[in-house]
């Protein structure tokens, strides 16, 4: 073979041999992390991370999936991640991680944005991880629960959150990139989902518990599930759920199943005061009538619609008022709406937006239509 050919082959060989497949990371060299909980150690203000990993010491085919928990400590998040190697044989792999649980303590005392930084910066972590606040004392307690329907706690929590919007509409799954957007957008505060422990048949399980309210990127309070529902109404994130009404002389005896909801918000600026109008348009099914059976007639349905309308309007208004007075944090994004629609006005109001928010006049209008009554008349 001529010289050129020989040279070429030598170069190729060197290329492969010398670089040695450095990025090659076999599947047996990694520990799959599915969930991360972030706490702070009281003694020395270090971060304590708890990882839930997939336990591969037993073959998955025969014994099924199992999870295991690893703890590690470090001065920063990345430091803690690497310190975990002191206890395990392989490096952690974050490409399949699904949730991040942050303890209340960190959320109250520190800017939540600094926690997110490592997760967004690292190439392995996916931007679709759910960001959750734990209402227990620490975040790592959440990994001690019994998972009811999936062997891995993280997957269980993730699935609960994802479907919640459509089923109960009391909480929202906030992904990392949305959280980042929320932290950096004008006139909007972050609201994150909350989980806590609950007792189910003698076992401790995880349960979602409304939303957490942030102000200036720090946690200031919680919205319990019955109020966070109206929060979701106000920001147009309702995809399902139930509205209960009291009608026909009884308490809480009607269930309306939300099929579809559309919320629109608009604002009006007069004499230095901002007025926001929130309009909701909901289509529901009559799901349950808890009274001795009698077929519904047109009049009753209209009556129900009216009651539902006023109930919903009242509840949303009250919820917004409560957030205004108690937290003063614009989690509804009204400021953001002004910024997007009328930037000049926003520039005027931006400095004291909190004041404006607290004294904001909010008017709620609700439309409800009962589309059908399921299969009973």
């Amino acid at each position, binding site marked *: 073979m001529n010289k050129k050919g020989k040279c070429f082959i030598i170069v190729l060989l060197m*290329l492969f041999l010398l*670089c040695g497949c*450095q*990025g090659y990371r076999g599947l047996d060299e990694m520990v799959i992390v599915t969930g991360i909980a972030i706490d702070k150690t009281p003694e020395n203000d270090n971060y304590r991370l708890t990882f839930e990993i997939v336990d591969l010491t037993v073959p998955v085919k025969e014994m099924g999936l199992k999870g295991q928990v690893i703890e590690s400590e470090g001065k920063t998040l990345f430091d803690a991640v690497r310190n975990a190697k002191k206890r395990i044989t392989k490096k952690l792999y974050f490409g399949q991680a699904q949730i991040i649980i942050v303890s209340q303590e960190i959320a109250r005392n520190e800017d939540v944005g600094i926690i997110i930084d490592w997760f*967004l910066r690292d*190439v392995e972590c*996916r*931007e*679709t991880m759910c960001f959750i606040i734990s209402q227990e004392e620490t975040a790592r307690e959440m990994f001690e629960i019994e998972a009811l329907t999936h062997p891995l706690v993280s997957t269980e929590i993730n699935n609960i959150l994802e479907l919640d919007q459509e089923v109960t509409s009391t909480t929202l799954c906030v*992904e990392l*990139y*949305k959280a*980042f*957007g929320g*932290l*950096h*957008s004008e006139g909007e505060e972050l609201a994150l989902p909350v989980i806590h422990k609950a007792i189910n048949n003698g076992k401790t399980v995880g349960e979602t518990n409304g939303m957490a309210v942030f102000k200036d990127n720090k946690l200031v309070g919680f919205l319990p599930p019955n109020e966070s529902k109206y929060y979701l109404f106000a920001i147009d994130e309702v995809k399902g759920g139930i509205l209960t009404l009291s009608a026909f002389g009884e308490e809480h005896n009607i269930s309306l199943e939300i099929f579809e909801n559309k919320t629109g918000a608009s604002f009006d600026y007069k004499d230095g005061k901002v007025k926001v109008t929130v309009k909701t348009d909901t289509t529901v099914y009559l799901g349950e009538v808890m009274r001795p059976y009698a077929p519904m007639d047109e009049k009753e349905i209209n009556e129900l619609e009216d009651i539902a309308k006023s109930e919903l309007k009242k509840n949303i208004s009250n919820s917004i008022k409560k957030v205004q007075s108690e937290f003063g944090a614009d989690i509804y994004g009204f400021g953001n709406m002004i*910024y*997007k*629609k*009328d*930037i000049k006005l926003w520039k005027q109001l931006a400095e004291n937006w909190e004041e404006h928010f607290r004294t904001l006049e909010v008017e709620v209008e609700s439309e409800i239509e009962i589309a059908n009554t399921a299969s009973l008349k």
Partner: protein
Amino acid sequence: MPKETVSLRQAACTFVMFLFGSSVIMGVNSEAGQDSWISLLLAMLMALPIILIYARIMRLYPEMDLFEIVEKVIGKIGGKIVTILMIWYALHLCALVIRDFSEFIKVTVLTETPQLNIMLILILVVVYMSKSGIETMGKWSVIILPVITLVVIFTMILGLERIDPTNLLPIMGHSLGTIAGGAYKIFAFPFAETVVFLCLAGSLRKKDSPYKLFTVATLIATVIFLLVIMRNLLLLGPAVTNAKYYPSYTAVRIINVGDFLVRIEGSTALNFILAGVIKTTVCLVAASKGITRLFGLCNYKHIVFPLGLLAVALGTLLYENIKEAFDFLEIYQIYAIPFQIIIPVFIWILAEIKVRQDKAANGSHSPDSAQTDAAG
């Protein structure tokens, strides 16, 4: 040296892929945030006159590449100087592209492989394509361009579920100055970089109109860019788009359709690599042609390999880290002005004058016979 010709379709596909090249990795983003798409459209408008000037130069001297035209128009000495300048520009651009690409690969995909290796295998493929000639490059582009377009459209459609149209508001939230600044950056990188195509102009047949080529291709590329920017903005929002180095990659990462079509960011990497290969090849061939003309060699294919290695070496020297890579864009828009604007306009004016002179000198003298002079 045998004449290589490409059809109009092949040239246009190469052109579009060249424009698509590294600018889609870098995200075509700027401080303009949610108004990046306005910057883009503005950039296209700014680019059209310059591009038409390039086309006009090609039209005045059909089937001649820039180095031949320059010698005809300015004379031997001036021609050689301009040739050297353009060779440097093409080579520098080649090194920039290689370096940008390997940065992308290193940061997102192969985090532990040394950057030199990544650059080397890229340059091997590029050299192979350059040695195969411009026709092969044209045919390759024709096959690959639909693939790239399909991927962009596909990801756009799949992402529709998650988009938030309010991410584009407030429209014109940024000052006109910021938007115009962003537009100029896009103009300099990539629209006006197409000046290197003038170095390959010898391959376009006389009967094909360079105007059509440049304008149609620019329009198509702008449409694709627009789709890409819109997709990024709508999916991610301006905050994330501005913070991440590679927003296209991130945007595709979050796409999740029915839990099944998920984790498809490999397709974006595919797009980048394929477009990058073409852009590097065009620059390398342009530089090679220049050097063959300068030193009187017989075939540019012989010098492609050494030039490729030189480009890689240059690439390793260019920046220290990736931040510098992105910051360089600020300087680049100024540094490129002589190559992108001054020299072509200069040549254009002189060319117009010369052609008119020739026409007036003897009534039958036309640019066609100018070609027979050059073919010698």
